[in-house]
């Protein structure tokens, strides 16, 4: 079904091939969070990978910053319809964090301070597709936007890029995270417009 709205379209924004369907371009950096912004002191920050047997591998802030760092420039797409192109970040590739992790699980639950969770298949985090970032646009990542550090997995809708990230838990099967429980898509590919359950 497509309803044609006569008289609509006179004030349209330019469409671009690098915008997924249903998205519009913004120059701002809007904020979307389900609750208050957690404040995480750096001396209490840690990041932990937990494998399917419960074995934990952790980094504190200094150890995390001593890992190889990457600068990357990516487009980001929020399910609330805004996209922001060419954003620049610095952080640690998930590949680096997984170098010494033995796991046969195919799925992950990403956790953040404040209790946020989101599910991402492991293959979507590896091979240069995702990072834990601590710097945005040359500045330390602001708490509103997920600082001290957030996941950035730019090829999925941005709710998958968990703010205030503090860990990845390996799962043998896919399970819904916070927004996925609330009706959003389990995978969230913006190019296939997988916003909600059933898309």
């Amino acid at each position, binding site marked *: 079904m*497509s309803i044609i709205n006569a008289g609509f*379209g006179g004030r349209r924004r330019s469409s671009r091939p690098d915008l997924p369907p*249903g998205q519009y371009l913004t120059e701002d950096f809007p*904020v979307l*969070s389900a609750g208050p912004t957690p404040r995480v002191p750096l001396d209490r920050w840690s990041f932990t990978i937990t494998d399917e047997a419960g074995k934990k591998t952790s980094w504190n802030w200094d150890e995390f910053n001593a890992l190889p760092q990457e600068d990357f420039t990516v487009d980001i797409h929020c399910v609330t319809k805004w996209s922001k192109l060419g954003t620049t970040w610095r952080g640690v590739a998930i590949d680096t964090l997984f170098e010494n992790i033995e796991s046969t699980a195919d799925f992950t639950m990403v956790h953040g301070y404040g209790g946020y969770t989101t599910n991402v298949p492991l293959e979507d985090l590896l091979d240069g597709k995702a990072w834990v970032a601590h710097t945005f646009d040359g500045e330390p990542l602001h708490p509103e936007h997920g600082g001290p550090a957030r996941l950035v997995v730019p090829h999925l809708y941005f709710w998958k890029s968990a703010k205030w990230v503090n860990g990845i838990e390996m799962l043998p099967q896919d399970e819904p995270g916070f927004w996925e429980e609330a009706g959003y898509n389990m995978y969230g590919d913006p190019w296939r417009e997988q*916003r909600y359950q059933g898309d």
Partner: protein
Amino acid sequence: MAESRWETSSARTLVLDVPDWPGHLPGQHVDVRLTAPDGYSAQRSYSIASSWTDGGKVELTVQRVEDGEVSSYLDDTLEVGQPIELRGPVGGWFVWRNDPAPVLLLGGGSGVVPLMSMIRARGDVRGKQPFRLIYSVRTPQDVLYADELKRRVRDDPGLDVHFAYTRAVPDGWPEKPGRINVPTLNTHGWPPDFAPDVFICGPTPFVETAADILVALGHDPKKIRTERFGGTP
């Protein structure tokens, strides 16, 4: 669109006739998709303003955004009898489910819309939960649902509303205009001991400020639900 009414000079309520509407929870939103004759389309999300019991009728209140291609069409071009494409209802977090807990609502500007859906739903079920709305708004002329809020404060037991004007106050108002701050929420909110469910909706700076203050005053962050909009058209 079955009918419409202007709430202020820049916000119109669209009453939509949706025969197969499955019902919704107060706080949920819909996605509106507009399509031009040449196939160009644009989508935006709008909170539902009506309560859950308005069988087949769904109300959206659309605040016109400067240069907003969708909001300006919905406010100024769409006529009664014309169709629009809706998807929804959407969202299962920022919703009120008629729980027994007292409810503290903080609305900034048109962020009051989903909170009004909660107030209306409580009225429909004759809810007894204490409900308090703190409504931050630029001037008295910008207040959405002003008459209905006045009537409901009189008729809905346990509901009260505090206006926090940011630019201009009514004649004789006891406070100067200003943004919400610690005294506003300490005086007009509820103490953390009261353990209210808190819903905050509005522009990002309003939501950030309000949520930070409530956490600093001792409210449990897990009881604070937020919905932010960036103000991008």
